[in-house]
């Protein structure tokens, strides 16, 4: 009801109800927005969802019948060993990424923009360098007659060359190099948002610089660390190229086994079931990551 001290309403004496037309026009506009997304979605649905869905289906078929046999075959010592090794290596690399990446991310976040920018270029250079080039570089550096052994023997630290490549050690060193930017970049962004007035307050309240760091800055930085860690961990789980080249056959990760099953043995059942398991774990971890980064923006006060 409208209260007016003025003239009567203009327009029709009996207002007609155009709710339907308006709603339809609204739907038309919504559809047009969706249409913009459609080409990208079409491509991805056909080329990613399709094959993945088909793999999923394939993992449940044996001899033309629905069966869980492929998954049951995963329940063996050999596969456990592969999963276990993959998880162990991923955990190791993630842990190292935190230990190595945190100090650098911390220092970068505290330095003035220009110096941090220069350091950032050093982090971005490996990021923008071909994966194969980086892996090849490690193959060269870590070999028996490579630069590292050369330097160690030359300075008398060791007498005989170390086996640094074609084994677990080389794989870890190589993987760490690939994963570090994925830890440092998000962690740096997150650390930069930590308000330094907290540290000033801590100082003012009597904390020594080291205590101020551990009791104030460190807890605030943890969400960023977790987010980076989960990201690196997930990437490690699915990694293929680096262990294939630096592991010398002694390191077998899940993705390598999938490729073997498919390309070498043509055992599509095994390849697909293994793939589905890997995908399931990956999706769960990414879901965890998405929850964590939302919480992080709540805390970061950013």
């Amino acid at each position, binding site marked *: *009801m*409208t*209260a*007016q*001290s*003025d*003239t009567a*309403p*203009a*327009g*029709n004496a009996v*207002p*007609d*109800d*155009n*709710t339907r*037309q*308006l*709603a339809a*026009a*609204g739907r038309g*506009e919504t559809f047009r927005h969706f249409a913009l997304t459609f080409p990208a979605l079409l491509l991805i649905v056909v080329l990613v969802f399709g094959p993945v869905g088909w793999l999923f289906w394939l993992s449940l078929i044996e001899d033309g019948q629905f069966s869980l046999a492929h998954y049951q075959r995963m329940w063996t010592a050999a596969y456990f060993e592969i999963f276990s090794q993959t998880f162990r290596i991923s955990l190791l690399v993630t842990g190292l990424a935190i230990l190595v990446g945190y100090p650098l991310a911390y220092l970068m976040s505290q330095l003035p923009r220009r110096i941090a920018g220069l350091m950032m270029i050093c982090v971005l250079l490996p990021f923008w360098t071909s994966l194969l080039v980086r892996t090849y570089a490690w193959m060269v550096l870590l070999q028996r007659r490579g630069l590292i052994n050369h330097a160690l023997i030359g300075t008398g630290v060791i007498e005989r060359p170390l086996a640094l490549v074609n084994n677990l050690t080389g794989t870890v060193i190589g993987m760490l190099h690939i994963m570090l930017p994925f830890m440092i970049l998000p962690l740096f962004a997150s650390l930069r948002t930590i308000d330094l007035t907290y540290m000033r307050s801590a100082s003012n309240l009597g904390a020594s610089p080291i205590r101020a760091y551990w009791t104030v800055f460190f807890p605030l930085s943890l969400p960023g660390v977790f987010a980076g860690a989960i990201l690196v961990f997930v990437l490690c789980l699915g990694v293929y190229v680096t262990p294939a080249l630096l592991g010398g056959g002694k390191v077998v990760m899940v993705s390598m086994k999938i490729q073997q099953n498919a390309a070498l043995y043509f055992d599509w059942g095994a390849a697909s079931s293994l793939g589905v398991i890997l995908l399931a774990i990956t999706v769960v971890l990414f879901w965890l990551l998405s929850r964590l980064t939302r919480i992080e923006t709540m805390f970061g006060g950013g």
Partner: protein
Amino acid sequence: MEAELNGSTGLSISGLSKHYGSFRALDAIDLAIGAGEFMTLLGPSGSGKTTLLMTIAGFTRPTKGHIRIAGRDLAAVPPHKRNFGMVFQHYSLFPHLNVAENVAYPLRMRRMSRTDTEQRVAHALDLVQLRHLSDQRVGNLSGGQKQRIALARAIVFEPDVLLMDEPLSALDKNLREQMQFEIRSLHDRLGITTVYVTHDQREALTMSDRIAVINHGRIAQLGTPTDLYNRPADSFVAEFLGESTLLPIERSGVDYTLSGQPLRHDHSAPDARYLMVRPEKLEFWEPGLEPTHNRFNGTIEQKVFQGDSLQIRIRLASGQQIVMRRPARRTVLDRIGEGGAEIALALHSDDTVLVPDGAA
């Protein structure tokens, strides 16, 4: 100024509603805006005034209802075809174009020739006296300059209606008052139908031909500034526009009383619940005022010197508090007693306004 409803480029809104689920942002609004009229939509935040403006502009799709201009229904017309000029709160001048290019933008969209465009742009900038800034980048301008460029851009293509969404709220006070004057002058000069949204009641009173006070998605009252100020339709409008004291009143038969005292008033007021008193309408009681005025006795609680006026808080005999405002002239200052002194007030029956509850 009287509104002229000859309808040629007036805007007619009927039955306009916007629902978000069960929430009614706009509830069956009927409003007729005359050609060349300066209509202000006034209300607190969340009242629906901006929603109404956005619906007129075409950015919000109504749930039902009609908006008509020169007989043409705008329901199916997208915003860019409505030919309405719009000025936004934060100016929205395009940073990647300079001043002249910004003002030329609507003409570019209408595929106007280069020479015509240049001419029109120059003319529009002249109207806001900023021709000398033609080549400037937008980022270097002050708030007031940006707003005037935004205005120039909104009128350069001779729109049928000018829509303004709280354009002055980001400016400081002095600049705001000057811009109010300039906008109104521009309106008078161009004769363009204008719909202006604001939450500042002083701004509304200063600039408008008519004001629509909006609350909870409905028009609480529609009228000229004088009408709204002197004859608010309910307690919400009374409190929103200007200072007022609302005193609860009781009904006795056909008449009303304030704590038992019968009230002399000049206007019929069905369902009245409050006596609305504007502080500046109260006078000191003189003998001989009985036929025309209502008398209230009370004691002075507090006097506040506010520069050009004195605000006096008085506790009435009935226990209610009332606020009086008198100019800080010698004659007044000499007359007022100190705190605790008795005082008798007079209120003309014409100023004795009874209002229903507005459930604000």
